[in-house]
């Protein structure tokens, strides 16, 4: 645990007093303190290209009244700096009065251990693994042109001080290990990328030669793409594989169910609560309580314990994801989805681990039912326009389906569709739910936060595939 006040002229008592004085006439708010350490070690082009370490310390003081949020953050934890922030907030909210004081529920549960992954593994042994990755992957043949691998580790301590001196804390480890391979054959170049990660030590993911599986997978994806042909263009049936392709659910539906867009009525879902938005086989939850997962949190960045929130149950819209601000304004409770990238950012309702639950079909049954379509196994990135509901995805591994059989791999095509209508086009839901490997980062309003996704295979009746073959 970090003590934020030992090396500062600001005492804990002073801080509590400033917080209480600033917030006494407000609806909500807090002082959020954060100390984060991170490392990045990168192997590229046969060399250690980068080894960097970062240490970041700062606070954000937030006051909310009605719908108005005032926020001030700085990396100087000092008496004068915090007082200046307080004055800044008070001047913004000067004519406004609030009274809300919804208590933060307490939890004893923890969804990850208090470890520092950066210090738990020596730099030498990380360098050793990177060297191993390079040699092992390059030994797969002369078609391997480039190998890139990286360790990313983070240790973040947070403390929340609320009006009246209430204190909430959390310590969050996070790691990610990535391998990217570029192959060249007959003048054609393709890349394959794979990674793993979560909230445990590096060794949990890499020990006993497990890192070789990451290299194998990156190499396999690149090899598949070397044989790929141009993708078709037009509307067709699409089978999504299990696990990571659930980022389609995250983008196409998840964002539209975040509290802020619905309070502001800019989401296509804002007036559909309690109504059928998907076929009966579709149930989607957002779960912050899975042990050691990338998107899991013991408490969110407002101090609310996370939970498993049912968003869509058997096709019916049940809940939005809420932070305290949007929950208060929509007369409901926070679901523990209030998150921020760091003390430099305001809290927004954000996803944690977003999952579509199992149905009863096998993936083979789905593929068999398709005359002409594509089978998408992995995606690169996606994006959504909340207002119009339109979303896109880039396939990084996909195959054509012809007469119920998987055919040739196809080149990076984009899928485009409409969030609310795609849910209704999900006709079969598989029985093979899988979690993603722990690599997702979600961007919203310029803030990136770690998230997870999961789903079984699903069959979507109609999606536009943006290839080049007419």
């Amino acid at each position, binding site marked *: 645990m970090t003590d934020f006040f030992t090396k500062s002229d600001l005492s804990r008592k002073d801080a509590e007093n400033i917080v209480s004085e600033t917030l006494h006439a407000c609806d909500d708010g807090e002082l959020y303190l954060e100390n984060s350490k991170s490392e990045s070690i990168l192997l590229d082009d046969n060399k*250690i290209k980068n080894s960097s370490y970062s240490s970041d310390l700062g606070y954000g003081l937030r006051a909310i009244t009605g719908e108005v949020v*005032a*926020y001030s953050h700085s990396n100087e934890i000092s008496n004068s700096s915090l007082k200046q922030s307080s004055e800044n907030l008070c001047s913004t909210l000067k004519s406004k009065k609030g009274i809300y004081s919804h208590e933060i529920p307490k939890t004893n549960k923890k969804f990850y251990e208090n470890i520092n992954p950066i210090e738990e593994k020596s730099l030498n042994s990380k360098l050793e693994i990177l060297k191993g990755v390079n040699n092992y992957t390059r030994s797969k043949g002369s078609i391997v042109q480039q190998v890139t691998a990286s360790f990313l580790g983070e240790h973040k301590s947070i403390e929340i001080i609320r009006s009246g001196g209430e204190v909430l804390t959390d310590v969050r480890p996070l790691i990610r290990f990535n391998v990217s391979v570029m192959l060249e054959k007959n003048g054609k170049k393709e890349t394959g990328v794979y990674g793993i990660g979560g909230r445990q030590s590096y060794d949990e993911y890499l020990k006993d030669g497990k890192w070789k599986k990451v290299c194998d997978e990156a190499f396999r994806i690149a090899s598949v793409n070397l044989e790929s042909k141009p993708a078709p263009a037009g509307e067709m049936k699409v089978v999504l594989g299990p696990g990571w392709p659930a980022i389609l659910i995250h983008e196409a539906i998840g964002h539209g169910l975040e509290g802020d867009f619905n309070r502001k*009525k800019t989401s296509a879902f804002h007036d559909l609560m309690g109504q059928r938005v998907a076929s009966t086989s579709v149930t989607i939850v957002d779960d912050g309580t899975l042990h050691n997962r990338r998107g899991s949190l013991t408490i969110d960045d407002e101090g609310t314990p996370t939970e498993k929130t049912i968003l869509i149950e058997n096709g019916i819209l049940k809940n939005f994801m809420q932070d305290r601000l949007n929950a208060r304004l929509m007369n409901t409770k926070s679901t523990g989805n209030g998150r921020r990238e760091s003390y430099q950012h305001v809290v927004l309702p954000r996803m944690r681990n977003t999952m579509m639950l199992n149905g009863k079909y096998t993936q083979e049954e789905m593929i068999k039912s398709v005359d002409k379509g594509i089978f998408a196994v992995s995606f690169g990135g996606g994006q959504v326009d909340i207002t119009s509901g339109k979303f896109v995805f880039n396939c990084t591994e996909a195959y054509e389906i012809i007469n119920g059989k998987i055919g040739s791999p196809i080149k990076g095509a984009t899928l485009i569709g409409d969030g609310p209508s795609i849910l209704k086009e999900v006709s079969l839901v598989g029985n093979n739910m899988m979690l993603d490997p722990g690599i997702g980062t979600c961007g919203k309003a310029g803030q990136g936060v770690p998230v997870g996704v999961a789903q079984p295979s699903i069959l979507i009746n109609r999606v*536009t595939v943006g290839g*080049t073959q*007419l």
Partner: protein
Amino acid sequence: MVKDQEYLKEKALYCIDYAKKKSATDVQIILGNSISETVNFRNRNLDESERSDSLSISLTIYIGKKKSTISSSNLSKENLVTLIERCIDTTKITPEDEFNSLPDNNLLAKDFKELDLYDDTHLSNNKKIDFLKETEEVASNNDKINNTESSFTETKSNFILASSDGFLNGYKSSSFSASCVAVAAMNGAMERDYEYTRKRHLIDIKKPKEIGSVAAKKASEKLNPRKIGSEKISLIFDKRISKGVLGTLASSIVASSIARGTSFLKNKLDQEIFSKEINVIDKPDILKGLGSMPFDSEGVQSKELKIIENGILKNYLIDTYNGKKLNLSSNGRSGGTTNIYFEKGKISYEELLKIHPKALYVTETIGHGSNLVTGDYSVGASGFLVENGVFTYPVSEITIAGNFKDIFKNITLSDDLEFDYVANSPTMLIEGMVVAGK
């Protein structure tokens, strides 16, 4: 007030001194402070105010040919000492790389032209509120608009770049930006669009009336879109989109990608990659320019660079490390381009619209569908169908796809170049791409 040069210099020199004492052979430091104030409005009411005060240091230590970097936001001496010692320890066990070094001394900036990048004007939050009120009132006057959000940000920054070979320079800069997002609704469906302005000096930003009315007009024009069929059709990229082609070009000619062999433009130097009429220039010394800078992030002098001349690729974007690897000198582009732009074409915007009887005018793309290894491109798009030079109806939920090798050779530019962004392009016609729709 942002920290002054004296404060930053003192910290930088202390770090260099301490690192040298602890056996560093070379040191490079970037130290910066940035203060920004943002006010957000929604539906004509105050929504959020934010004040941000950020300090940052990034320090790279060399011991011979070994190198390692630390960064932090905590500039207390105690913390700096701990971090420098940690960095020294890390550097010692990091493997050597023969290309690691500070920039060549003769390339370091000596000419520090005044580029007028700093405007000391401070707009109080109350004035920002007045600005946004007017913006949203104008936007809301449009009866199709049911939701508006707008934002004003003022940023003042100062930084110093220092290295153990004596380079010590930095400067203040400022930026003022305002934006308005309008949501138009009809028959239960909604469309969103925006207008945005950002300048170094307050006096140069667009007026609230213009921002509000443009955002509202653009959003309402998008209502009731249709999906078109899958076909090969000529595309016209609005300036908001055409400038993105420069981003792709820049990322594909960065020396690091060339050295690693991961760019589709590897080995294309001195070859024709665009049609003959196309010229691309990167100009670091535009007065008040959003991308202007006298030197790059290593202190190397930035000079005007012809990137594409008569369709031919003339220069990569080169930093010290990758330059040494490629046997080329740094051209002051560590950190990428400065103010990059397409030279304007010969025909007017109206003439461009009429070149083909039917074309798709693209105003928005979504997704990250550029593969710089292969040049393949596929993104979601929306815009308008243009028939005989006239906008006929909005189009959405389609994708556009092609390969940049072909796209580059099939570009025609109009003469409406303006300098609104860091990268700037006239309106652009591209022939031969495929639209996937119904």
